[in-house]
């Protein structure tokens, strides 16, 4: 879908960086193959891979700023409820559609609810949904993708078929149908998290599969196999750790994708239901009155864009830092 193009675009670029990431893995195992064999290790102080990545990331100013902004928003989302004068569901009678003031920092809505408290509450929801969906869906993608590639045969064919099927189905409409069907039982965050996860893992799983295919015949995997290590153990011990670069990037970008999915669903009334509040419901409410009472739209939008932008900048920095052919590293050793 055009409006979710961002999510697909990032996978496109993941696809290309995938070969480079795999190349990095081979470099690493090549180094491991000759332990202490090179003289440079004696001469120059060698950095561990973790330190190297950390250094590269730190050099990317916008990524670091993004990380700080995200951290700030995270703290704000959970501490904000304590500094707010009102609760998000509280109604201040007589104060309808008031512009920002001393008692209502971001103004009030038509029902007289405090926009600051509502925005903080919505931000909290988005944070929760973004982080949990990212962890769940990347985990699912890693497991399905690597098992499919490692075991091949029936498992691979079945999982590829399921992936294709889920890609053909328009996720937005199906989630909306299920959420509407739940109707009176309330929207709730957890059904939404599960549904978004269910329709979010497929493209990453495909990337994981093709990466796994490129490393499953490496010596260390074969050695483990001949020593009699069981298949699933090999996957968890040798394969998944070796594609961790991709998984970290994927999880980061999934945070943004999940937040956008939730916001869009709530915007159309299929996600979080009133009286509960999310950034999506607030924007939907605010956009109808944007020319006369702009603050209802502005507050949630600013926080939403800030959050997604921060995640994207961090993701960009991570990709540069984890990419072995990256020029961002400068002095690598």
């Amino acid at each position, binding site marked *: 879908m*055009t409006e*979710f193009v961002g999510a697909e675009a990032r996978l496109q670029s993941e696809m290309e960086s995938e070969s480079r990431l795999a190349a990095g893995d081979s470099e690493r195992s090549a180094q491991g193959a000759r332990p202490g064999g090179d003289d440079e290790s004696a001469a120059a102080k060698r950095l561990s891979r973790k330190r190297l990545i950390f250094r590269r990331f730190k050099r990317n100013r916008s990524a670091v700023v993004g990380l700080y902004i995200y951290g700030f928003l995270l703290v704000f989302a959970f501490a904000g409820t304590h500094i707010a004068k009102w609760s998000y569901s509280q109604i201040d009678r007589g104060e309808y559609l008031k512009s920002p003031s001393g008692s209502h920092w971001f103004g009030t809505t038509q029902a007289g609810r405090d926009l600051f408290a509502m925005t903080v509450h919505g931000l909290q929801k988005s944070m929760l949904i973004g982080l949990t969906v990212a962890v769940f869906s990347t985990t699912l993608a890693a497991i399905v993708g690597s098992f499919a590639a490692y075991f091949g045969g029936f498992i691979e064919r079945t999982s590829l078929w399921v992936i294709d099927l889920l890609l053909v189905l328009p996720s937005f*409409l199906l989630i909306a149908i299920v959420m*509407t069907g739940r109707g009176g039982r309330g929207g709730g965050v957890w059904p939404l998290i599960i549904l978004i996860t269910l329709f979010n893992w497929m493209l990453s799983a495909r990337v994981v599969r093709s990466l796994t295919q490129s490393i499953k015949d490496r010596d260390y995997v074969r050695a483990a196999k001949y020593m009699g290590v069981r298949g699933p153990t090999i996957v968890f011990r040798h394969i998944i750790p070796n594609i961790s670069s991709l998984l970290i990037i994927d999880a980061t970008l999934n945070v943004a994708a999940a937040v956008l999915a939730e916001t869009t669903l709530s915007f159309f009334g299929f996600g979080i239901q009133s009286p509960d509040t999310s950034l999506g419901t607030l924007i939907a409410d605010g956009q109808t009155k944007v020319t006369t009472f702009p603050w209802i739209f502005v507050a949630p*939008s600013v926080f939403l864009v800030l959050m997604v932008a921060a995640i994207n900048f961090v993701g960009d920095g991570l990709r540069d830092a984890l990419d072995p052919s990256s020029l961002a590293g400068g002095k690598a050793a």
Partner: protein
Amino acid sequence: MARFLARRLLNYIVLLFVAVTAAYFLAATQLHPRQLYEVSNPPIPVESINKSLDAYNLNDHEPVIDRYFDWLGDVVHGDWGRAPKGASVNDEISARIWVSIRLVTIGSVLGVIIGVILGAWTATRQYRLSDRITTFWSLIIISTPVLVLAVVMKLLATKFNQFFDSGFFEFTGETGRHAPGRINAWGDRFQHLLLPTITLAFAGIATYSRIQRNIMLDTLGADYVRTAQAKGLTRRQAVFKHALRTALIPTGTYFAFTIALLFIGAAITETIYSWRGMGVYGVSTIAGQDTNGVVAVVAFTGVCVLVGGFLSDVFVAILDPRVRQ
């Protein structure tokens, strides 16, 4: 090659059939068209509710499996069924497809063309000021969901109209009141199309410039570009003939894949600018407990996805000589 394509096509059809069937069962069990009749005042007797629902094959007292086979029989004959109040799904969709096409075509084509040019240009200037500025802004726009971007555009247009005391920007619907005459009618359409087109183009430019820049950076550093320069081509010739052409393949594939999805994917733009296209229809069928309508939209989307996938295969075959053999 032909056998490969035929097998692929068969696989697509099976996939689509399973997907639509799954969607039917999901929609038929989760949506409740009966509710629409039950809320009416004065209340309608149960018998007449059942009669109406039976007529549209929406009666939840009948087993889902029976309804499914009735529905399937009609679909085979090209009839996608009725909405809970009797409107024909076929009529609705055939009118809305054209609205969607009129809405998204110009915006998305502009988005991809400008995006590709911008991406290719910034790639040749990596890490210079112009590249940094473009990268920064494209990341900001990618991070701005359409539901924010479209509203911001609308707000800016209103301010513009107020400031110049004009009605230049129109932002509700496809057409409005205008002076008689064909030229005025076209002008009116243009004014209504302007804002959604800018919105869609912005989103497209940001996305495609990102993709194109990333791919172009890879091809610019490739050996064959260096070879081309070594054998005497200028940098400019090498970039255009070898780097850009190669870098267009993935972007083109991606565009071919998404072009089919444009029909359905503009739900937010349609909502904010009040166009009655396919995206809004998809949303309204669910809100309106319209089982048959939503399944038809799912099927339509599925066809779009598969056509997009097929188009991108064909596109690669045309552009990439290695695949053709």
